[in-house]
């Protein structure tokens, strides 16, 4: 219930800020940017396998597009749906553009290291390495599987919300997420004995 109320408050706050942006209020632009920048940046960062410079560039592109088109936003859908759609399209366009020149490298699976044998500092280091492995594995997914995964885990969107962002059915979202998870589970199977084993 609290979550629902919080989400509603957030939507109402977004709506007010968007309205101010549509009036040309530069402070509102900044507020909107500060509210959403980390999520947009994280999606771009994970979409492009940890390339921070590219993620920054994508984030800037997304917000520039957003601010220059904010007058077109009709409030027929959630603002965040539109924002994530812009983010998705910008990432996929960039991926398409880049694919002509530099394909993303395939990730090599790291050899398994049993967690129990590591001292604390090394365990932390191991966690970071695992996070890197997960990020690299995500980057090898097909773009449409990758973006569904990122919207699910960074934005915590429901299947219905993801379907709206990607302009497809809930069934398609379910299918893409399932394929994405299956592939990741296969590729990251060597990590099962490590820190995220649920203990």
């Amino acid at each position: 219930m609290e979550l629902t109320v919080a989400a509603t408050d957030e939507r109402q706050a977004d709506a007010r800020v968007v309205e101010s942006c549509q009036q040309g209020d530069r402070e509102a632009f900044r507020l909107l940017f500060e509210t959403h920048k980390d999520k947009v940046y994280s999606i771009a960062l994970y979409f492009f396998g940890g390339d921070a410079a590219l993620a920054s560039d994508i984030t800037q592109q997304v917000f520039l597009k957003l601010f220059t088109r904010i007058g077109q936003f009709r409030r027929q859908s959630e603002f965040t749906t539109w924002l994530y759609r812009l983010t998705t399209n910008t990432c996929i366009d960039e991926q398409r553009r880049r694919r002509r020149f530099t394909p993303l490298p395939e990730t090599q699976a790291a050899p398994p290291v049993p967690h129990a044998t590591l001292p604390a500092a090394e365990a932390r280091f191991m966690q970071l390495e695992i996070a890197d492995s997960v990020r690299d594995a995500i980057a090898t997914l097909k773009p449409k599987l990758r973006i569904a995964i990122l919207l699910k885990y960074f934005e915590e969107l429901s299947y219905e919300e993801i379907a709206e962002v990607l302009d497809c059915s809930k069934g398609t979202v379910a299918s893409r997420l399932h394929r994405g998870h299956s592939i990741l589970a296969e590729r990251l199977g060597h990590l099962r004995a490590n820190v995220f084993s649920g203990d």
Partner: protein
Amino acid sequence: MFGQQHVRKQLTAYAHGELAAAESARVAAHLGACARCRAEFEKIAHGIRLLENLSPQAAPVNMWESIEAALAEASLESFQSGQAERPSQGDAREADTRRAGLPGNLRPGDLLSGVLRSIGLRPVRLMGWRPALAAGLILLFVLGAGGASWFYLRETGASWEVARLAGAPSIDAGRIGQTGRLRIGEWLETDAGSRAQIKVADIGQVEIDPGTRIRLVETRETEHRLELARGRMHANIYAPPRLFFVDTPSAVAADLGCAYTLEVDDEGSSVLHVTAGWVAFETKDRESMVPAGAACRTQPGVGPGTPYFEDASKLFLDSLAKFDFAGGGREALRLVVAEARARDTLTLWHLLARVAGEERAGVYERLAALAPPPAGVTRDGVLLLDPAMLSAWKAQMEALWLA
């Protein structure tokens, strides 16, 4: 596990709590009894645990400054283009004051924004001025921008930027240099050695191949429209659905958030290939919904044909072309239905509303065999073209079409 259907494909949605209660209970019961599905579930759960441990990363701290500078630049460019590329004192002062970082919470800035918006330019919020100075500058802007907008609209009207990619593209028979402006009503043409790119307002771009003739019909906040008389264009649009349209001699392509190629031959026939998202290819009384990977033809006097996936069999494609445009009739339809694969349910679903009687029943039977209808969608309802049932069935089949 004889007699029970495995639940592998539902496992991710089950773990995410996205299944309906009854379906979720069925999956849970099945997992209790089926070791294979349980092993699969453990694998999926492992993937979910890894992903749930990902944490959002903070964007670099100085990013806003770059965005603000780019926004100011964009606004300045808008303003300068409004002055018909002849900077005035007002322009220079506006640029200088903005660069100097002037003004505060200004209501006057809002007024200025309103003025800029009213003449179709992007507003800039100015901050921290003293009231007297602000009032003086506002007056200057009102006069300057008003005059500039009058001059701009009188001289140019709304227009899009065109960039030369190769050869010598022309606008209304006049060759452009590296760039040009395409105004409402004007034709952009490329000869056999020319290519060009059009910036579609601020919602995307269109590339024009050699031998193309295209006209800007309309551009306003709620609608941007081109007319493709002949040749080929590639559109990449980021706008909300149904904001960008392309008229062809026999149908209109309505963008639903997508990328596509559209080609018109000398007879006015068109073919649409969608590479991302969806495009609606439509006339007044017929609509074809074309997803990524699919194509659709159209002919003058007929309108949009039935959409199809281009990797279908040759016999399927030839028969569909005969059925749509060459009076192929029942025999062509029979071959289309017989040759259809699961993915070709895209074509069969569209055919339901384009045939009647026994033919519709035949299409239904094949469709139901390839993609059984979901609960609540009945044979009788589909044969009566119940919109809700057709829509529900389509939603289910989209997983096949977009896979």
